């Protein structure tokens, strides 16, 4: 992978730490990189990603803003047009809706609409995700709104290593990149390559190889898919897990190559089912691997309700490992798959 010159040295750290360390390293590397957002300085960020950075870099590089999402996201666009590399923190993706005009009508359009004369090299970092009992307005996975928009790039790392690699790539990229973090991932740990580590935007990863069924996931649901894959391995079911990592551009060829190998696919997402990322992935598989399929492609997604607060209802509404196992079994059963491996399709 280009730019991935790290040796074999790795350190175990949390997803939060990987983001923090990458912001710091990029600010040290490039004077034009600065942070802007609500409560990122004195308060150290709602989720403490920017802890200590105000102290180290001062208020010029770590700029606290009033509660004006449209104003400061738009200001980041203008700063980027003059050649700075702003990294915006939006407290959660839910609040991006206050800035959607600036993101969709401006950040995404300025490069093409003005005939390629100017770039908008900015990053918007923001966590999404439910399951934290934050209620209907604070638990959404609306990255698909942005993944729909040409001109934007949308990435969603699932591991601390990709959090580092994708954030660094996003900061060095000359287009507006939305980096979707996830509340449930901040404390998860993983091995992170030391030194320079860039993950190319637009490439999915095969997170686990398998031969019987492909599970396509991104962000928080990759962990669910990997757990399920381990569990089903004991039953003789071999699950391949594809981590999309990038929602726009979407790595259609990695998805289809996997499905052509396994002949079955299930998509799992925290988003709602209708018009979601899963819908795009299923359409992609249908167009790119139709003749390889042994079963209809299935989706595991959130129940289509505003997410309730109460734990019993919230848990029921969000997809989990049990839902995925059930759908994988149905997908295999549909073609008379036997765990021994002999296929009667």
């Amino acid at each position, binding site marked *: 992978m280009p730019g991935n010159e790290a040796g074999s040295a790795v350190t175990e750290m949390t997803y939060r730490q990987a983001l923090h360390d990458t912001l710091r390293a990029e600010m040290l590397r490039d004077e034009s990189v*600065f942070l802007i957002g609500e409560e990122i300085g004195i308060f150290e960020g709602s989720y403490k990603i920017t802890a200590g950075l105000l102290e180290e870099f001062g208020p*010029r590089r770590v*700029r606290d803003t*009033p509660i*004006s999402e*449209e*104003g*400061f*996201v*738009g*200001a*980041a*666009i*203008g*700063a*980027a*047009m*003059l*050649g*700075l590399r702003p990294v915006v923190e939006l407290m959660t993706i839910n609040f991006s809706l206050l800035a959607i*005009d*600036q993101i969709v*009508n*401006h950040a995404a359009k*300025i*490069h*093409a*609409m*003005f*005939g*390629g*004369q*100017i*770039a*908008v*090299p900015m990053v918007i970092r923001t966590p999404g995700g439910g399951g934290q009992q934050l209620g209907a307005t604070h638990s959404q996975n609306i990255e698909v709104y942005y993944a729909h928009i*040409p*001109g934007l*790039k949308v990435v969603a790392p699932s591991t601390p290593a990709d959090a580092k690699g994708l954030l660094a790539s996003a900061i060095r*990229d*000359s*287009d507006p990149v939305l980096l979707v973090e996830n509340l449930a991932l901040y404390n998860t740990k993983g091995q992170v390559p030391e030194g320079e580590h860039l993950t*190319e*935007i*637009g*490439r999915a990863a095969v997170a686990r190889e398998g031969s019987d069924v492909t599970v396509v996931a991104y962000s928080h649901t990759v962990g669910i898919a990997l757990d399920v894959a381990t569990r089903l391995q004991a039953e003789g079911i071999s699950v391949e897990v594809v981590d999309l990592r*990038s929602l726009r*551009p979407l*790595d*259609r*060829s990695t998805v*289809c190559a996997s499905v*052509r190998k396994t002949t079955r696919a299930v998509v799992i997402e925290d988003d709602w089912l209708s018009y979601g990322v899963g819908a795009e992935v299923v359409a*992609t598989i249908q*167009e*790119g*691997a*139709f*003749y*390889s399929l042994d079963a209809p492609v299935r989706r595991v997604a959130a129940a289509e309700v505003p997410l309730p607060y109460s734990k019993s209802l919230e848990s029921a509404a969000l997809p989990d490992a049990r839902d995925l196992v059930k759908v994988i079994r149905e997908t295999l059963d549909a073609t008379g798959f036997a765990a021994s491996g002999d296929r009667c399709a």
Partner: protein
Amino acid sequence: MPINAGTKTSRSSSNRAKPRSAPVRPDAGASEMQRMTVESPETLLGYYSQMVLIRSFEQRAAEMYTRAKIGGYCHLNLGEEATVVGLMAALEPRDYLFTTYREHGYALCRGIDSGRVMAELFGKSTGVSGGWGGSMHLFDTEARLLGGYGIVGGQIPPATGAALAIAYRSEPGPDAEAVMCLMGDGTTNIGAFHESLNLASIWHLPIVYVVINNGLGMGTTVQAASGEPELYKRGCSYRIPGVRVDGDDVVAVRDAAREALESARVDRQPRLLEAVSARLRGHSVVDPARYRSAQDVERAQELDPVANLRSKLLGEGVMDPTMAADVEAEAEAEVARAVAFAEGSPLPPVSELFAHSYATPVPNCPGNLPGESPFGSSLASSIAGAGK
């Protein structure tokens, strides 16, 4: 800081007694004549020539629109020529300009070739934005025209951010850069205006927000739409000093804008400047403006800044009738050349449809036309068509 403190252009005390009346110009009276006599004849003639060029350009643009050479929306600066020229006379080449969809005149005054502006309206590849923007989205890096914007108020946050970048990189001073951000009267009601003025104030940004008050936002009057119709006062919540100037007085506009820009670059004090002018025609070329009263239209025509400056310059002896005719003929000739250039230019080829998808290219983004596979032509054959 109190609004209007110590500013010579604001003479709006009489307005305060009638808070909901139509926008009233500060009465220049005799002082305008005095000022005009101290301006050099060349300067005044230069301003007049630019105003006449804008007038000719816009009239030809309207004509080309009705002849279907220009598509989409087409908003004209007719009636705002003195404001356009005055503002652009104050803006230095090193400064940045963000404007609206009503912008042809600004592009011309920033020194962009009129042929390239007309070609953009025609959607030609030689246009300032390569045919990607159209009338509402003119852009030129060299002229530091950082865009016309079609979303009302959409330009205000990025303009504020451009001023942030200037403050990030350089020290204040008389040679510093500044940003001018233009908008219409109706635009002062949008959230982005208020959020941005607040940011500019707390961050001490080198920016001048200019409200071009032509009395109307489409068919809605300023009085009907604005809780505070004296728009220059709308900065007071953010302690941004505001000034109202007669937008039909090119020199007054220039001086007010210069003063505001000076304050922005030297003191990092953002400013709000309101130029009161009038729209001579409809909101856009296709708008017959039936909602306007006959008196309103008549009044706008009486205030026509091009006609009025013409008679003033003739009366003052700055220009004689031959010179006036020459100026008009030159403008007509230039616009005719611009139209010919636009007509003769090629349309952008379809092969360039994906040329500006991203500034940093990415894999897995082949670009497919309607009906083509999203896998791109190379992958399409190997994947989509492959039987089992």
